[in-house]
């Protein structure tokens, strides 16, 4: 009997469900502190609100840049989180009939994480202006899943199609990256107090390509289908930040900064979908609405700093909740909504950072830190293809070589966490069960940086 191809609604439903699950496994939407940005801050776990005294310090507290070390009028810092290894494991993430497979991803990426420039002026109170470019989030993944010999009984979900032996193969690539461009002004009206303000332009870009084939022998002969999805989006937003730094005593520092919620100013996207039926569909920016908000952030820090001996610092960062929103809505010119991505909501999150620095000698500094990166996703009953819920904990370490005009730092951040993710058994059968499966993430980010005082 020659093979027969059947492409029906049930097949497409099975394929599309699988298509979305794996590549959307990135954690970016709900975490705020994947690694510590900055040269000195990177080694101190991001406990930098009360210090913020390097050229990229405006990321933590705009008021701190008046204290950026410099010989003359300017300081410039370069930090590269050059090499990031990420590991992800989701138990039973991919399931079809009687077969399930864990999703396991190892990925390697390189990116420039922070650049800062600070210039001071004025003969009375110290004034400073700063420019920062930071990449607080970089999430890249590439992987594939394969299920072979799947048995799937006929059911309403499959429109009566019974798979006696089916094969699913899927490959995907995904990238989610946030880039913050900041302009900062700070002034020290009093020797012990400085205030600062930043205007931030936040760019978030996402990219997904996912492709699968589903084939099998069924009660209606040999069947097959294929699905492809490619999506790219760019989301630009503005935010403002105000900060205060107080040098209460010779060694005691306090810092507070408030970053406003982001307001979207532009968005663009393209989506390409090709199924087994008909010609491919292309959606452009006029039909797509991308939304990637960030909430209000309040950071409070305290530090004890004995210059050229040691520093201890502690931060609390509160991120407000966000009302449910849909990251992607597809409409046709007539205004008809043809797709609305599952709504995302975020709860209140409080993260802590704790860091220390010890000057082993005039030229050598050792730094260490600890930080949390709790998820903004509310815990909820497991929902099919729902998001993961993982709280991350991080450790930081750095070795710095300091001279009067330069610094050079090598460091590493390691963030790790265990949590849960909706897993599913017996998918598309009458025994389908969604449950909380285990999930884990690890990020190792090696960075090196340098700064120059002009």
């Amino acid at each position, binding site marked *: 009997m020659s093979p027969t191809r059947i492409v029906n609604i049930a097949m497409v439903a099975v394929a599309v469900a699988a298509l979305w699950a794996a590549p959307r496994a990135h954690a970016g939407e709900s975490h705020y502190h994947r690694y510590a940005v900055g040269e000195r801050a990177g080694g101190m776990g991001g406990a930098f609100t009360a210090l913020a005294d390097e050229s990229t310090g405006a990321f933590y507290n705009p008021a701190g840049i008046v204290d950026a070390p410099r010989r003359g009028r300017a300081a410039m810092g370069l930090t590269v989180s050059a090499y990031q290894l990420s590991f992800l494991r989701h138990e039973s993430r991919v399931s079809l009939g009687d077969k399930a497979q864990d999703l396991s991803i190892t990925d390697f990426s390189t990116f420039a994480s922070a650049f800062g420039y600070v210039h001071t002026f004025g003969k009375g109170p110290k004034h400073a202006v700063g420019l920062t470019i930071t990449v607080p989030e970089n999430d890249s993944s590439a992987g594939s899943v394969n299920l072979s010999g799947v048995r799937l009984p006929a059911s309403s979900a499959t429109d009566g199609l019974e798979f006696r032996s089916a094969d699913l193969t899927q490959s995907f690539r995904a990238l989610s990256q946030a880039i913050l461009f900041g302009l900062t002004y700070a002034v020290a009206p009093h020797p012990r107090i400085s205030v600062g303000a930043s205007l931030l332009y936040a760019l978030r870009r996402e990219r997904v390509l996912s492709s699968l084939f589903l*084939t099998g022998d069924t009660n209606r002969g040999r069947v097959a289908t294929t699905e*492809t999805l490619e999506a790219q989006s760019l989301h630009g937003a503005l935010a403002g930040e105000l900060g205060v730094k107080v040098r209460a005593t010779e060694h005691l520092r306090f810092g507070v900064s408030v970053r406003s919620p982001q307001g979207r100013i532009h968005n663009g996207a393209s989506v390409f979908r090709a199924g087994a039926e008909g010609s491919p569909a*292309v959606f452009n920016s006029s039909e797509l609405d991308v939304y990637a908000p960030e909430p209000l952030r309040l950071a409070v820090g305290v530090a004890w700093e004995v210059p050229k001996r040691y520093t201890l610092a502690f931060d609390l960062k509160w991120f407000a909740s966000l009302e449910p929103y849909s990251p992607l809505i597809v409409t046709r010119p007539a205004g008809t909504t043809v797709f609305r991505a599952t709504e995302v909501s975020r709860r209140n999150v409080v993260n802590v950072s704790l860091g220390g620095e010890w000057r082993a000698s005039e030229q050598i500094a050792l730094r260490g830190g600890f930080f949390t990166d709790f998820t903004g996703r509310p815990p909820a009953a497991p929902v099919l293809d729902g998001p993961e819920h993982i709280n991350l904990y991080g450790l930081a370490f750095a070795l710095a070589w300091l001279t009067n005009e330069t610094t050079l730092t090598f460091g590493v951040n390691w963030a790790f966490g265990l949590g849960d993710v909706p897993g599913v058994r017996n998918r598309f059968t009458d025994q389908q069960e969604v449950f909380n499966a285990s999930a884990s993430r690890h990020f190792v980010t090696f960075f090196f940086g340098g700064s120059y005082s002009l």
Partner: protein
Amino acid sequence: MSAPARLPSAQRSPIFGAAVRLVLVGVAATLSWPGRAQASEYHYQSFMLGERAMGMGGAYTALGASPISTWYNPAGLAFSTGTRLSVQTGVYGLASERVTGSPDLLTSDSSQFLTFPSTGALSRRFGDKHFFGFAVVTPDVDHRSAHLVARNIPFTAANGAAATLDSFSLLQDDRDTTLWTGVSYAMRVHRRFSFGVSLFFPLRDRSLLSKTQATFNDQVAASTQVDLSSLHVSLLGMVGVRWEPIDGLFFGATFRTPNARILSTAKGSVSTFDADMSGRADVNLSGVQYKLPWRASFGVAYAQARRFSVAADISVHGAVDPYTFLEGTDNVGMPIEPELSLVQKDSVVNTNIGAEYWLGGIVPVRAGFFTNFSARGTPSARARELSLFGLSGVIGGQGDVPNRYGVTFGTGFDTGRTTLGLNFNYVFGESQAELVTRTAPRPVSLLLIGVSGSYAF
């Protein structure tokens, strides 16, 4: 002219044939889409490296006397002073690729924002004559996501019948990163003459997902998915000399050997779908091959310290005999069709020109120009024939030979001991996008902003 009739289903088999053929077609589609303005199999200087060198368009063979000389001409290290660390860390860029063809050939705007580290280099002097260098550089990087769709494609089937494909699409996500790690030794054999050697370990990491799909009579007639991940590490050497016959006038020359593979890993799968057979074919890949040709560079420069400099380079890359990029067997145990992953490089000559003028002896202003000509050879008749179902035309521009040009500009501070630089590197070119029988202009551009600095200990 009336549109050709659709192909009757009974005549499909000669065209949408065996899965093996589709495996080959998918691989061909995957490999034949040339890179954008940056990472490409056939271009050798997509953007410039180094603080001063980037600003001067890469004309650094004769001029170079800094840690990045490990990359340009190791003999230049012997003219550097003491121990110096040079870092060109933050590189931020915008890469753009568009195809603006007829309504039957379209693509989304595949502009990408890039952020990557570029260069770290260190030089150190031992005694009066001996110098060592170490460099980690990223000479090429490409993270690209693109799709092309051609619609209503007339073609002639194997049995001579005229038919029309509804559409043919190509989607790709390509991450191509190179990282070269090198060490150098240089000796100042005379006040005016030095020589040096470098040893490099080029690493190329590539992750590629590609999907091709043809639709006919409102259904997929054939589709191929290629998932490829590979790592390739090789070794090559470079020797160089630098001569200063009179004060301020410099000549430089280098020769770089072809690379020799020392490590290669690859894994991949190819999945196919057609009217006669559906299934997955795990390709048994044993490795990948990336061959770099020999390179000879010659440079001349005239420099008045902290006043002005002018420099020019000419570099010749040799040809590379045809070789197979993918090594392994296909789904039926046969060696992967050599013609379909065939790489052939012609010899190519590139030039670099740069100038530098100092304001107040502390602020250098630099500008440069460089060419980035393609080494792509003419594809063989067999490769063109197999490009897609035997249709005329090629996939994704297999005959595409874009030549590119770059301009650079840079400025900064240089106190002698500490330098800071801000450089701009813009590369542009235009080629033809081809998808089956459709062609359209395909302008490409790459704008990079590099932030750099160095410090002498």
